[in-house]
């Protein structure tokens, strides 16, 4: 076979779709697992700074091992590699009384859902004409909800299979925590469907590019790079952006945003809602009996869930990969790369916010979480749907 034939084969629509999808999956998976490592490092560093400590600052390039005089500390960045290596080389201890099958199954069940969520998140516009979403499906948001709620099975099974009281309490807490906030999480997103009229995340982002981010009440209409050269058009677009509808809709959309954000914290078991883990009361919660790579899977799952949750927040509320003025990938590969960078930057901001929250707030009490979910967020989210409907009805008639 000569090169032309191979090239022709690779550019056949179906084949092209298959190999680009595999490539995207492979790259995204590796990037995300790397990001997890960086997030853990950032978590340790930020927590240290918040508590007036230095945090990890020693592990760098071990020059003394290579015959040098002094190690290069490198701001402790080597910790990102040292932590996984430590976890990998530890003994994987399985207690005698556990249900072996479920004990081994649980970490995988926790790790899998957040990675599946990444499949529908658009992490960029397009690069060389290839769409930067692994699966552009019409039920994208529903897919996220369907998959993320599965991770609670992993936690509950881990708690139950460990045959130990603290993990068991952790697992039970996780399942009841899930039903307290999952309803509010699902309902909080309905106003977005009513405003954008679609469940497809890519279309939600397109809507936001045209009409502005969902959390921004004012947005210049059809603002672009070319307009900067034409002041007349610029003023026109600035004025056209002011609309009563957007300002009125901003109220329910902000309520949705707050509920969604808080629910994502609960979804990813982050403080102030890390009741299934609760180091101080439950030793380590559901993963008390786990060690080595099994424990690392939980760890990885938790941070991948943080990443996926942040990705969902960014894609749905904060305009995804878009920034005002910056064009999308159809204007050239450079802008495609910029869009990917913008998405990762936005996700990093949300991740930092999550870390910041963790080292600020104490844990909610168990009943307080239930009360917040059932008596706080659930009715507010329901009311929010009607509020949005009324606003839409009044404005359009």
């Amino acid at each position: 076979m000569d090169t032309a034939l191979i090239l022709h084969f690779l550019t056949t629509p179906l084949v092209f779709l298959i190999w680009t999808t595999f490539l995207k999956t492979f790259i995204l998976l590796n990037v995300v697992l790397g990001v997890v490592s960086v997030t853990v490092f950032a978590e340790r560093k930020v927590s240290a700074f918040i508590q007036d400590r230095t945090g990890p600052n020693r592990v760098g390039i071990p020059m003394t091992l290579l015959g040098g005089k002094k190690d290069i500390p490198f701001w402790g960045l080597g910790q990102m590699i040292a932590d996984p290596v430590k976890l990998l080389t530890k003994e994987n201890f399985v207690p005698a009384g556990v249900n072996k099958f479920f004990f081994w199954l649980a970490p995988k069940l926790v790790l899998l859902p957040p990675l599946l969520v990444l499949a529908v998140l658009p992490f960029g516009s397009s690069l060389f004409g290839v769409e930067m979403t692994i699966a552009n499906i019409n039920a994208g948001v529903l897919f996220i909800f369907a998959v993320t709620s599965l991770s609670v099975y992993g936690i509950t099974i881990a708690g139950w299979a460990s045959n130990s009281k603290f993990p068991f309490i952790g697992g039970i807490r996780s399942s009841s925590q899930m039903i307290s906030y999952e309803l509010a999480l699902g309902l909080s997103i309905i106003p977005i469907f009513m405003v954008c009229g679609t469940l497809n995340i890519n279309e939600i982002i397109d809507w936001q590019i045209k009409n502005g981010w969902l959390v921004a009440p004012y947005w210049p209409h059809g603002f672009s790079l070319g307009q900067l050269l034409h002041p007349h058009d610029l003023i026109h677009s600035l004025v056209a952006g002011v609309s009563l509808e957007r300002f009125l809709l901003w109220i329910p959309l902000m309520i949705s945003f707050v509920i969604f954000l808080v629910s994502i914290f609960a979804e990813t078991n982050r403080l102030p809602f890390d009741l299934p883990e609760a180091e101080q009361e439950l030793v380590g919660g559901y993963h008390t009996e786990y060690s080595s790579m099994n424990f690392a899977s939980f760890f990885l799952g938790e941070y991948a869930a943080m990443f996926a949750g942040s990705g969902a927040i960014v894609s749905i509320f904060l305009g995804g990969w878009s920034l005002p003025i910056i064009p999308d990938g159809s204007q050239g590969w450079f802008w495609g790369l910029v869009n990917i960078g913008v998405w990762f930057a936005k996700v990093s901001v949300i991740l930092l916010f999550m870390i910041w929250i963790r080292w600020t707030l104490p844990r909610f009490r168990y009943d307080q979480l239930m009360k917040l979910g059932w008596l706080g967020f659930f009715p507010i989210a329901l009311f929010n749907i009607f509020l949005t409907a009324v606003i839409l009805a009044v404005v359009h008639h």
Partner: protein
Amino acid sequence: MAIVVNRPKLTTAEKFYLPAIFAGLAITWKHLKRALFNKGIVTMQYPEEKWDANLPAWYRGAPTLVVDENGREKCVSCQLCEFICPPRAITIKPMEIPENDPWRKVEKRPEAFDIDMARCIYCGLCEEVCPEEAIFLRKDYSITGLNRAEMVHDKETLYKLGGVMKGLTFKWNELK
């Protein structure tokens, strides 16, 4: 008698948590920002920076042997420390001081004096029991070794760590 503590009445703003959350975030942000510019960090970088100058006079570090101002070793190998040592870290081999020695009058001194620092619990009983005030707990705390043999302080090491103790010592001073 049971004390009744009434729950405080919360205002509407307090019930929403959010103002308190923002106040907390502001505080942690302040600390984060300060630490980013390397200010306000209280961590001491241990092997490079040490707290040694601030150790109190009565600090109980590694037990050592001392000589007096005349260079005479104070220990007369009565072996009281060996007997009182709770973890049995001390081993003494006594010897007669030879006839031609200027300190013949003292009669005995240790031929070998070993303290196993892997066993020592830094209790200070050896210092308290010593009738000759020959053994003192000094301020060395970082005693390390690569094997058990390296953790044993022999007589030479003990005198090197201990140094000279001049004049009267107030052993029963409660701060010592």
